[in-house]
């Protein structure tokens, strides 16, 4: 028996274990390094929101009470100063636009995804696969290619600088993602349950709403979160299509530049206010975000 087994080289095994320990140290070093890279800008943003002009322009300062004296300059500016109403107005815009456009995109995208997964459509030479591809390929559309025609269209329709205008646009921009995620989701749900519901007399929509949606809810939540993140952080279309009524937070952040220079404290405060809700969502709902991002790519 012993002769049949390959000879074990215990010396090699020990060095392998040594390599393993070294490997672990290196692994943690790299991971902690990248964690620092991820977190430092966020920390920098938060700490800058508590700095005054001297602390900012004198040179980089890192630790409150050690390098600089934390003040409420930035936060006062946006919460109490004359910017307060603007901040609250824009935050409300961002919130409404994100919630509604994500909801619309999720609803319409789920319906479309369900239809494409269950029914057979025919539009001339185009079948389900082509229609799905058409939806998802909207992702490739560069904003540059649509921003000018949409600018003109919105101007003629009086949709410029309106919340509805941005909501509609974001809904459409988010639809490909939702259709991608939901079609994948619905394809993996066995059809028997809906068939049973149909036999029992439910309509197509009833079966969808009462049987399928509860099962597909995680995917819908994931899609909703991704859409909301996008809408909340979007800048380009918001900058082009709004002026002062439907302005969102990213636009306000970019606007913290006055003739006296950049108002870093209020900009940092705004950036912090913008990222904190998403960071909390990212921490608490990380599983859903991952589910949404990996839909269709990984089984």
């Amino acid at each position, binding site marked *: 028996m012993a002769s049949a087994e390959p000879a074990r080289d215990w010396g090699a095994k020990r060095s392998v274990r040594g390599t393993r320990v070294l490997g672990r140290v290196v692994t943690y070093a790299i991971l902690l390094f990248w964690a620092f890279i991820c977190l430092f800008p966020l920390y*920098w943003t938060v700490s800058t929101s508590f700095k005054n002009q001297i602390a900012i322009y004198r040179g980089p300062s890192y630790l409150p009470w050690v390098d600089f004296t934390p003040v409420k300059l930035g936060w006062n500016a946006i919460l109490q100063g004359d910017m307060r109403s603007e901040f609250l107005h824009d935050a409300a815009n961002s919130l409404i636009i994100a919630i509604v456009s994500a909801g619309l995109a999720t609803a319409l995208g789920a319906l479309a995804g369900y239809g494409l997964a269950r029914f057979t459509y025919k539009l001339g030479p185009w079948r389900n696969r082509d229609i799905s591809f058409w939806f998802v390929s909207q992702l490739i559309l560069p904003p540059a290619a649509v921003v000018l025609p949409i600018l003109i269209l919105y101007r003629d329709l009086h949709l410029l600088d309106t919340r509805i205008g941005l909501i509609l646009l974001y809904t459409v921009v988010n639809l490909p993602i939702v259709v991608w995620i939901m079609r994948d989701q619905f394809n993996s749900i066995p059809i028997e349950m809906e068939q049973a519901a149909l036999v029992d007399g439910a309509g197509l929509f009833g079966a969808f709403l009462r049987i399928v949606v509860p099962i597909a809810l995680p995917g819908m939540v994931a899609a909703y979160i991704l859409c909301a993140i996008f809408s909340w952080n979007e800048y380009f279309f918001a900058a082009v299509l709004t002026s002062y009524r439907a302005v969102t937070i990213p636009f306000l952040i970019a606007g913290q530049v006055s003739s006296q220079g950049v108002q870093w404290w209020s900009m940092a405060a705004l950036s912090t206010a913008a990222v904190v809700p998403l960071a909390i969502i990212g921490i608490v709902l990380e599983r859903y975000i991952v589910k949404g991002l990996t839909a269709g790519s990984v089984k």
Partner: protein
Amino acid sequence: MARGSVVVDETAAEAALARPKPRRSVINPRWQRRLFLLPAVIIVLAVVIFPTVFGIYVSFTQWILSGSQNARKFIGVQNFSNILFHDSQFWHALEVNFIFVVIGVPLQYVIALILAVLVNQDIRGRKFFRVVFLLPFMMSPVAVGWMIGRSIFDSRWGPLPHFLTDIGIKNFYFFDTGPHSLFALILIDAWYSIPFIFVLLLAGLQAMPHEVFEAARIDGASAWQSFRDMTFPLLLPVSLTAIILRTIFEFKLIDIIIVVTGGGPGNYTETLTAYIYRRGVQGLDVGYSTAMAELFLVIIIAFVFLILIGAGRWVRDVT
């Protein structure tokens, strides 16, 4: 006789109840099915397709939005010939886009791959790393551009240049020359974009069967060998999806550039989107800019198509 007719009626009623009553809906079933798809299709047609088609028409016109008179003149392919043959900035901007795609995306992929492989090990605090590594993606690109690009990278009071000086790299300024600015932008964009690839690759790694790797390890394969010959090939489909999606999004890069360099210095870091924005939204030359946008769209589609075919073939040969 009356009793007899009642009996007949009851029997008929019983029979009717025994038969499952089809819900007669107001809408014909075929239209019900269409109604699932229609709202999404309609809104996409209205908000995106229709303007895009209109844009195609506009690209054949000379149209400058100034004043009250929007004189639109049909000039055929003149816009396109001007762009392709007389506009060096168009080609430069396109080149900038491709630099971001050809240099930025592989850089992001490699870093994300290293991180994903490391996090996939049996380490402590995995959940911590997964959450922390996702956080950059949560920040608005505008905030990323300002707080990182113009604050952390600032040569006068930003932490990064001071740190570089401390470790011996003196006199390196991020935004003095064009190439330096591009380099800074690629780094900033990578910070924001790596989480996306990381999440996909990590999910792909976690979906792999363990037994195969155990067998390989017992047989004496080194970590590098098992990665090169097994992990990486098995990860290729996910890698490909991640790279293609990242490439598509990389072409759309705009917020960070506008905020950090504004396309400068001297339009050096101006991507095509930024150039279109400058000519079309700021300069109001809508006809010309829309023509550039249409060309851009065609180029992107062609490029993505090439990657899909070429890489798909390569993946099939390797796996």
